[in-house]
């Protein structure tokens, strides 16, 4: 267990999330990709706090803020999906390629 190992796993999670966010057509699956990216960010933040910051409490605060960002992303993301589906009956990114109805 080391900082390098933790950052490697965090990088893998971030890369997987980016792959999903860019490659998935469904908007809800795209949101899951973003969540996976934030998962990697939280792991990297926690590892930096534990190995490179001497346990400085601001490091934990950074992870808490990342959790809040994830909650906001999920709540607003799903609300937008519901609103878009009500208005245009689409839940794929291809259905949102223009602002005109």
């Amino acid at each position, binding site marked *: *267990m080391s900082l390098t*190992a933790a950052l*490697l796993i965090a990088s893998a*999670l971030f890369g997987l999330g980016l792959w999903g966010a860019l490659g998935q057509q469904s908007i*809800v699956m795209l949101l899951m990709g973003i969540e996976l990216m934030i998962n990697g960010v939280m792991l990297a933040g926690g590892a930096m706090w534990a190995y490179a910051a001497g346990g400085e409490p601001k490091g934990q605060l950074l992870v808490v803020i990342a959790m809040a960002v994830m909650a906001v992303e999920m709540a607003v993301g799903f609300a937008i999906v519901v609103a878009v589906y009500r208005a245009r009956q689409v*839940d794929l990114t291809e259905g949102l390629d223009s602002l005109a*109805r």
Partner: protein
Amino acid sequence: MTGVAFWVFGVAAVVAGWRVFRTDSMVRATFLLLASFLNVGAILLLLGGAYLGMALLFMMTVEMTVMVIFMVAFMMNPAGLNPMNMTHQPRLAAVAGWAAFAGGAAVAWRSNFPDRPLPAGKAVIAELGTELMGRSMLMFETAGVALVATMIGAVVLSSRRSRYGQDAGDDGSLPPVLDPATGAYPAGVLPEPEASGHGHHGGHS
């Protein structure tokens, strides 16, 4: 022993994260995402972040349970009985994902981070509480206000009753009526002979 557990949780988090986009059911994908989060929470516990690890475990369990409901609502492949491949630009996505991993891995290998490990016996939870209620209270309160604003925004966005009227939630962005008292037709919208006044939009002239 801790090192073995770390790698078990780490590999499990990555494999579960990969399977999220390789399963045929969006519900299963949600539970796989939950598994990835739970493994990262376990790693945070191993790193000494007791509060962070437990907060992540509880928060993600609840969040993913709620997400499953949305997945059932939006799932176009019930029960995952049929193969599901809803992807686009797969080559670009794969290249970007690998590039992000390679960049992060290069930073992890080549950077010379300070070697300041967490001291044994440090009261990390008490220090976090003091930080949140002390020097960083403004940041903490700002996050709280942002979450409240998010709740209000999510309710407004997902409500059937939109700002254009009780039944306009399904109609998209109808322009507002010219005279709310009489319920006159919106600007640019002429009444159809047999229409009741709802369900048609701009563009008639």
